[in-house]
């Protein structure tokens, strides 16, 4: 599968950049033949993943770096990778369970939303090294009809 278009951006782990990140990914994804609802869902999953990197990965330290790589493939698959170099996750499987959170003030729904709104979710994490969240969704027209 070839990459049709690609963007990679890295930014400071500042809360203000969560909104920036989701707008940018949405602006890029708008090249796909997708609906406003699709764009809303993309914004949501990016918001969840970037918030996690900032809150959990970096314990809200604003001087770290979050990286997002977005690719549009030949078959109109959108691939979003959100990466941090923070504390990492001990037990990824547990972390992905609905309502599980290590922070009692949070919902534990971030990964659940990512799973619901994307076709694929892959989380690779090394404690002390960081976390990579890979999200994929196909926006080919044939596929979209299956969604409807």
């Amino acid at each position, binding site marked *: 599968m070839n990459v049709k278009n690609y963007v990679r951006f890295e930014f400071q782990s500042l809360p203000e950049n*969560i*909104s920036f990140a989701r707008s940018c990914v949405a602006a890029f994804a708008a090249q796909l033949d997708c609906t406003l609802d699709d764009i809303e869902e993309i914004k*949501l999953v990016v*918001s969840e993943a970037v*918030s996690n990197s*900032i809150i959990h990965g970096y314990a809200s330290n604003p001087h770290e770096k979050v990286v997002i790589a977005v690719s549009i493939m030949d078959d109109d698959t959108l691939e979003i990778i959100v990466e941090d170099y923070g504390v990492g996750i001990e037990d990824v499987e547990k972390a992905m369970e609905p309502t599980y959170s290590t922070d009692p*003030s949070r919902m534990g729904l971030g990964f659940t*939303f990512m799973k619901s709104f994307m076709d694929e979710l892959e989380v690779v994490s090394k404690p002390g090294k960081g976390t990579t969240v890979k999200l994929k969704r196909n926006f080919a027209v044939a596929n979209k009809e299956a969604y409807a």
Partner: protein
Amino acid sequence: MEGIIIFLQKIVIATVEGGDSQVDVEIKMVRNTLVIRVNGELDMVMAEKLKKEMEARLDEGEVKNLIVNLEKVTFIDSSGLGVIIAGYKKVMAANGRMYIVGAKPNVKRILILSGVSKLIPIYDTEQEVINL
């Protein structure tokens, strides 16, 4: 809950301004009901502003019921839901009632998917809640 909320004294008691000097969070106290109107994207940044204002009021102990007006909210994520649930817990602990009003379709959808709408009833307008 007849007539508990009377919208005569619509006095804004607190506003939190966003970077572009628009009002992000507008808070009104109407008898013993706190009415919070949120304006913008309810993500982590806004959630923190909202939480701070909301908890300050709720902790004063004079609030019984809570209305969160999401009419002007264009986006919500799980950080936004978290602060709504935090408000809900406090209001429940004080035997009050909580309502969400004005959620746009995309916001409503997240409220439903997350199960929040099972805990907190959603109405279209503040007026509807008044008329309950």
